[in-house]
């Protein structure tokens, strides 16, 4: 079920109402049934995959806690991780690996007889797999007690607001909340409603509007000039931010109304002054996941500079692959690794240059320049993320490099008309205005905010229940 669908408009109030009406001991049951229904709305049979990982990790958690011998504990953890990664490997990476085997075999003059799997990727697989893995790892580390209630554990993995696109929660933050007795609270409800409406604004007004131009650019690169390419790639940066952070806002809002606190997943990432800072503000639940379960176990920054660079590279490569089974995601991850490593290597030299040129005295202007450079770097990397293949990405980059900045209305509007471009710029302006609001959306004039935003959604919202980009991951 999509958050921006009519079905959800009915589903959410009904579930919330019953949640508060039901006695506390039955609430987990209601939430679990609602979460199953929510997930099965996409493709019912994939619930079996979820059920498989839930049962495996639930049992692994208990075995991990009951076992005293470290060697056996390690074995159980590995088994659980293999089961989770195995599901990911089969559904997400099998065809990608097979395709590459075919390529290599072709080079060697051989034939690859391994058949391709004709399965659709279960929605949000990478999200709930990572959430399940964080549970077993935390139990193994002794930071979390094993959950002995299968229903509550299943709810931890399947809680519908964050089931298909995160935030990827930690057991320490979530499981105890399912035991807590939540009553309807005015402040939670208002704040939750603000988050939902703001999330819908980001998705339906900004992201879906910008997608018109972006899809046209990536579908007809041959028609673009450097202006339209520049506009299109910048639009995609904003589109993907609004699409994904919009989802996270709605997820947080729906949970908040019921009394649950989900972690903040985005913190205005395009206001970052460096790519490293960007990763502390973008998809925070995933970047902290990689920090805690990959970067630190690899040695983090404790084993010298070269190991640190290697760790950056591994983390970003895996992050790229987490997003999708395609070399374009690998390039995207590698580019970010390169940015971060390069920034670290050149930090002293850059500071010296900035001091010599007097840039450090410019204060807010200097900070603005840093933000622009970061936005440009991140936007460039997004080209690989958005393009279907490497060839399409290079076409886009070639268009930029042509420096064809002639004014041709048809090209600048990408044949979608001036009104679409004007509306796109208008919604970006509205997004910018929304940055004047506090990040937690705890406002003085809630009614005004809700009324204006809802009105804008109805008037400027794009028609059609467009899927969220991150569902595919």
């Amino acid at each position, binding site marked *: 079920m999509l958050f921006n669908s009519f079905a959800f408009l009915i589903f959410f109030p009904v579930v919330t109402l019953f949640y508060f009406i039901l006695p506390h001991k039955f609430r987990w049951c209601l939430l679990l049934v609602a979460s199953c229904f929510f997930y099965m709305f996409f493709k019912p049979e994939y619930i079996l995959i979820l059920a498989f990982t839930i049962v495996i990790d639930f049992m692994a958690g208990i075995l991990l806690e009951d076992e005293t011998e470290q060697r056996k504990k390690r074995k159980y953890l590995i088994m659980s991780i293999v089961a989770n990664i195995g599901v990911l490997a089969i559904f997400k990476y099998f065809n990608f690996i097979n395709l590459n085997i075919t390529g290599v075999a072709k080079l060697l003059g051989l034939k690859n007889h391994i058949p391709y799997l004709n399965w659709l990727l279960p929605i949000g697989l990478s999200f709930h797999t990572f959430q399940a893995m964080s549970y077993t790892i935390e139990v193994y580390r002794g930071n979390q007690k094993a959950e002995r209630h299968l229903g509550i554990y299943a709810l931890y993995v399947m809680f519908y607001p964050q089931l298909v696109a995160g935030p990827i929660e930690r057991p320490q933050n979530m499981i105890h909340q399912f035991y807590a007795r939540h*009553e*309807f609270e*005015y402040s939670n409800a208002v704040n939750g409603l603000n988050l939902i409406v703001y999330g819908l604004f980001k998705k339906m007004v900004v992201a879906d509007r910008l997608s018109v131009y972006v899809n046209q650019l990536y579908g007809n690169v041959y028609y673009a000039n450097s202006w339209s390419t520049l506009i299109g790639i910048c639009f995609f940066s904003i589109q993907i931010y609004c699409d994904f952070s919009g989802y996270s806002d709605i997820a947080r809002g729906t949970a908040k109304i019921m009394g649950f606190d989900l972690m903040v997943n985005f913190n205005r990432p395009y206001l970052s002054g460096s790519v490293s800072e960007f990763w502390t503000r973008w998809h925070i639940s995933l970047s902290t996941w990689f920090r805690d379960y990959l970067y630190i176990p690899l040695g983090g920054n404790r084993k010298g500079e070269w190991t640190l660079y290697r760790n950056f590279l591994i983390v970003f490569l895996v992050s790229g692959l987490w997003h999708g089974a395609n070399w374009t995601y690998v390039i995207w991850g590698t580019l970010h690794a390169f940015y971060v490593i390069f920034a670290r290597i050149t930090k002293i030299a850059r500071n010296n240059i900035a001091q010599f040129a007097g840039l450090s005295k410019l204060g807010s202007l200097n900070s603005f320049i840093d933000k622009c450079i970061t936005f440009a770097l991140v936007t460039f990397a997004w080209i690989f993320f958005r393009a279907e293949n490497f060839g399409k990405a290079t076409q886009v980059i070639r268009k930029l490099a042509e420096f064809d900045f002639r004014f041709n209305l048809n090209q600048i509007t990408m044949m979608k008309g001036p009104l*679409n471009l004007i509306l796109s710029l208008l919604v970006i302006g509205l997004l910018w205005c929304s940055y004047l609001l506090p990040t937690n959306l705890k406002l003085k004039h*809630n*009614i005004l905010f809700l009324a204006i935003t809802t*009105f804008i959604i109805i*008037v*400027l919202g794009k*028609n059609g229940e467009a899927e969220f980009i991150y569902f595919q991951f």
Partner: protein
Amino acid sequence: MEKRNLSISNFRLFCVQILLPLIFILVAAGLGFNYLFEREVVAKSQISGAYKINRILTQTYPDEIPIFGDSRAEMGLLPDSVGDNFFNYGLYSTGYDVTLFFVEEECKKTKKRPELIVNLNLSGFTYGLGDISNYLYNINDDGVKKLLGDDYRPYFSIPFIKYYGRFESIFRTYFVENSLMAKVINNGASLENQSIPVAQFRALVAKREEDLPIFRTAEVLQNKLLGIIKAHPNRLFVFVIAPYHPCCFDSTNINTGHAFIHMLRTYKNVRVFDFSKSVFDESMFFNTSHLNYKGAVYYSRLLHDSLSRIDSN
């Protein structure tokens, strides 16, 4: 128990302070906006589908000779060049189901002039509602509801909400009409004033050669059309086939189309004018199946001459 009571009082507070005022504000603002939008934008844009549907349903101009059809009618016939009192009801991206809806409504009216012009295509009888926003202004009309069929949604009856996601397309038409940027507007017709660069036009021709129009027969629509013709012997049904680019003539079943045209000609109150091969100058085309302004003026004059001959007979 105390917690539960607190929860209920919180819920009451939420309803009284947030939910109800929000609903009230949205309903009031929505109704106000809807009123102004329909009065100032929808009803005042003569090339919008909403205006044309409203015009055919609610207004009668006894001297008017209507032109019905899809975009080939809308972009191909300039009413003022065809003659006096013509109005172009052509609707972009619609099929014959919509054209027949217009024809049926027209036949219900008492008119001084018996003629009505109906565009006919080499693609025959296709279905297509086009942009749903065209129908929303008159959504409470039973005929419109019936025409929408499965595409009708209950929220189409709710003012303001019904336009969700569709304000843009209506505003676009309104702005096009009022800015006159690249179009010539004339009594419902919307004509392309710009020509496409030669290279792009060649690409369109190549694309069309791969996807030639095929005359589609749809018994329901054909029978409905013949039924209307038979039921209104006092009306003169003038079928016109607008010019096509020569690359379209290689259609595999063009004979099926010709057979149907031949059959239409057997009706006393029917005239058919086939202009499909009357334009060969590429500078008159917007694309392979639509004329530009220059082509439309030429074609409209041809029709004018043909209609004059009917009058003199």
